[in-house]
């Protein structure tokens, strides 16, 4: 019977040794391609320019904007409170340190959202959390917040409310004084329409 013991014991030991040498997954946090794709398709990472404007105006401390454009562009203009990390430098140690802050929402932005989405995809793959993308980027910011468009008289009440909100935001971000042309009041035609059930999404 001793022989059996010995054989069994050695098999178990060999298995144990084998397990030790099994490749440990080096990157347990890394997000799988399937998960990454699924999150990309859900589009839950987007923040609209209206939402962002509101949070900045309210002084929301959890916003951390990250400008992923080239240094030259960022030097010309950056959103309030933003940090410039060009896409090419995104994985440097000092850049990744930014993501160590707790309780922050990291919002990538660029002129549009192509670059920002690429930044999001690469950092999300590493397993980082609370990553967002500014939908439409700075071009959309200009078109919705800096230069809001007056809705046509036939548009819904929601569109007018949105315009009012954007006017207010525009004042905040440009310091422009609101010119009220008394000769041309905003005409709002009261049409009887079915109330829109979906909230108007701000965007470009």
């Amino acid at each position, binding site marked *: 019977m001793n022989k059996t013991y010995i054989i069994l014991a050695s098999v178990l030991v060999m298995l144990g040794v084998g397990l030790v040498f099994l490749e440990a997954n080096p990157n347990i946090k890394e997000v799988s391609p399937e998960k990454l*794709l699924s999150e990309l398709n859900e589009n839950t990472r987007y923040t609209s320019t209206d939402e962002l404007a509101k949070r900045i105006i309210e002084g929301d401390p959890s916003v951390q904007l990250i400008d992923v454009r080239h240094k030259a562009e960022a030097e010309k*203009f950056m959103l309030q409170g933003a940090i410039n990390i060009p896409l090419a430098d995104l*994985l440097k140690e000092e850049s990744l340190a930014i993501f160590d802050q707790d309780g922050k929402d990291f919002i990538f932005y660029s*002129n549009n*959202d192509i670059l920002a989405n690429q930044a999001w995809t690469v950092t999300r793959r590493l397993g980082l959390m609370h990553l967002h993308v500014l939908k439409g980027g*700075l071009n959309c*910011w200009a078109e919705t917040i800096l230069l809001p468009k007056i809705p046509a008289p036939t548009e819904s009440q929601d569109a007018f409310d949105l315009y009012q909100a954007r006017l207010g935001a525009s004042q905040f971000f*440009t*310091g422009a004084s609101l010119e009220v042309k008394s000769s041309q009041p905003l005409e709002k035609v009261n049409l009887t329409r079915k109330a829109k059930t979906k909230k108007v999404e701000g965007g470009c």
Partner: protein
Amino acid sequence: MKEQDKTKSLSVAALIFVAIIVVGLLTTGKPDIAYKITPQQSIEALGKPGNEISPLEVAKTVKANDNKFIIIDLRSPYEFVKGNIPGSINIPANRILEKESLDFFEKNATSNSTLVLYDATQSLATGPWLVLKQLGYDNIKMMQGGWKIYSGIDSQDPSQNPAWLVEIPKYDFAALSASKETNANKGNQAGQKEIIVPQRKVKAKKVEGGC
């Protein structure tokens, strides 16, 4: 006698144990879909030219009946049927990692062919494109402008800045935001504040509650 019984049961237990381990090892193989390039390599690939292609160039090859590109439409079948680039193949964005799709990409991964991916907009195409790129397929490009621009390509005015080059600043943001009065934006413009990287103590083990 007792000795023999004990040995027998031990042997059986050990054999079962071994069997379980072997089965476990055999069934947890490497994941089917794995990244082939590191995140840093992805960043470097993003910095290289040739990742994008203009809708004008695609339209040219389509008009000339030139089969230079294998064009892939990432939209839903419903949208695809309503209108698509002639000769394009529909692989919805949420299905590009299914076995059938991966087989297709694998088959066309030779360096001779170029796959052009497009969606309704370039924004929608960039994610799936980058995922595939990280899986090792480097003969893929994404089309600028998306179907939104392509569908009206003939009416594009060549003298204007192409509508599909979206990552160009369309406005002088600094001028638009120039502080004129008091409650203006006091944010970062030129002259960056030094970036203060918060140095945090490395969190030690999480404190377990209890006695």
